[in-house]
């Protein structure tokens, strides 16, 4: 953005602390009257240096660190990290552990979308929706808590398996929660589609076209809302996703309303996936038999090599590039977060919109600054 301010122009700084933002970043918007002429995103308030920290931790210690990249997607971050090590060390994950991972990752998608969508509704002034989604999210969190023992930073995955098996009666608990959650999602959809004020703030606002989105490298719900059916779970399947039946939720419009709609549909798909998993899950061990891998993996040396592994995060494509030099610590880890490109859509999208729509557009991206800064 050009810092020079012309006549009847001014620069407004939104952030680093602002109600629209889940984490600190700064949006500098240059305004002419009420219209945004140009804008720029500034980062770095929550840079934790996770890539450097991981170089100084053993592989097992790294699992707890990658949780902290983004607490809403802790399990998918772990999946990407653990998947890298499993590819490098050639570890086969037993089927039961794979199913448990899919179940937990889909739960994490549901809770992330519930929070992101509810938060977003409160950004455009629909504050009571936030209370509804947080209430329903609590049931999902309790289910996750009953398996992993933690609510946000789970540290649940291990190399070759998972920490714990599903508890007794988990299937019944899930069914009980899902009955309520299905009703709740239907009612959210009805509220969103029938509320005139909400519709006039979201329909046709912040339209992202498929060409621009692909150019910027966007993935996840913001991309699928533009009509591109890009989903790592289907395009580059990992775990047991090839055996499961699910559809990639797509909307055509590309506006703010479509992004929220994609998240609603994805929650339904996730519930469907979890139900299939609970029906199909085989009995068996949680760790590959006859190997040293277990809940407490001894200090392990991973064969030298390089690997790129990507998974479908609640927000899009989460990829880890890991370089191993054969020691017990990774030589270099690059974290490719999905929000990193998504946040860069803001300057092109905000050009020419009114200042009141900035919050509606920026909030609908469901950004996680903690993940962008790492």
């Amino acid at each position: 953005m050009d810092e020079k301010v012309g006549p009847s122009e001014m620069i407004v700084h939104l952030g680093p602390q602002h109600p629209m933002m889940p984490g600190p970043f700064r949006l500098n918007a240059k305004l002419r009257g009420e219209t945004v002429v140009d804008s720029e995103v500034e980062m770095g308030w929550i840079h934790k240096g996770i890539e450097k920290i991981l170089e100084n931790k053993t592989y097992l210690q790294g699992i707890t660190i990658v949780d902290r990249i983004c607490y809403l997607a802790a399990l998918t971050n772990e999946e990407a990290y653990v998947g890298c090590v499993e590819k490098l060390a050639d570890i086969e994950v037993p089927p039961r552990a794979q199913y448990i991972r899919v179940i937990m990752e889909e739960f994490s998608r549901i809770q992330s979308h519930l929070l992101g969508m509810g938060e977003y509704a409160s950004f455009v002034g629909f504050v009571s929706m936030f209370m509804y989604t947080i209430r329903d999210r609590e049931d999902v969190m309790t289910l996750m808590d009953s398996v992993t023992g933690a609510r946000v930073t789970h540290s649940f995955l291990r190399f070759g398996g998972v920490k714990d098996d599903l508890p007794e009666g988990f299937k019944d608990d899930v069914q009980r929660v899902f009955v309520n959650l299905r009703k709740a999602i239907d009612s959210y959809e009805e509220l969103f589609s029938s509320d005139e004020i909400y519709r006039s703030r979201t329909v046709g606002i912040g339209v992202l076209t498929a060409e621009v989105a692909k150019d910027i490298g966007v993935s996840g719900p913001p991309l699928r809302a533009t009509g591109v059916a890009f989903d790592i779970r289907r395009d580059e399947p990992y775990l047991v996703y090839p055996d499961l039946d699910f559809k990639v939720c797509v909307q055509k419009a590309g506006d703010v309303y479509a992004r929220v709609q994609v998240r609603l549909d994805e929650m339904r798909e996730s519930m469907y996936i979890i139900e299939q998993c609970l029906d199909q899950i085989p009995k068996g061990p949680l760790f590959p038999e006859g190997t040293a891998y277990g809940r407490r993996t001894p200090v392990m040396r991973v064969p030298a090599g390089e690997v790129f592994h990507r998974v479908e995060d609640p927000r899009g494509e989460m990829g880890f590039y890991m370089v191993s030099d054969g020691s017990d610590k990774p030589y270099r880890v690059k974290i490719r977060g999905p929000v990193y490109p998504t946040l860069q859509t803001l300057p092109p999208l905000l050009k020419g919109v009114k200042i009141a729509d900035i919050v509606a557009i920026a909030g609908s991206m469901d950004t996680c600054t903690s993940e962008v800064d790492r």
Partner: protein
Amino acid sequence: MDANTMIDSLSTQFPDAVYDTKVGSNIRIFAKVKPESVKDVCTYLKKNLSFGHLCCEFGVDYPGRNEIEVVYVIGSYEHSVILTLKAILPRDNPEIESVVDVYWNANWYERETYELFGVKYLNHPDLKPLVLPEDMLGEWPLRKDYKGFPNKTARNLV
């Protein structure tokens, strides 16, 4: 088009610039590129082989070999092949052509690689730090010989 055809097409188009090609599996291919022709190669990849999605771009430091590798992980929205393209730069003066004109989202990746590794990108529209404060420029914290900042920690301030 499968992975083998892609890598053949790339090495026939750029016989001098692209070397050490390797097919890892049917969705992973690897190649190394001379730093001066990285932009031409990226343009060809995007136009002809539909590699339109830059997954990430970053540096890896090898003080033993006195080299810094700049790695481009390039995927696509049309097919699921991922190309890992590497350019090897000297560690004392790492300079490489920017690919922002080809891949719009390379902008932030290159700014980050610049502040963390000291790789200078030529013809980059706005090469300034992204996540670090301005006064840390020149310390290149993700290089392997970075010693932390013992003079700036709280212990020295109290």
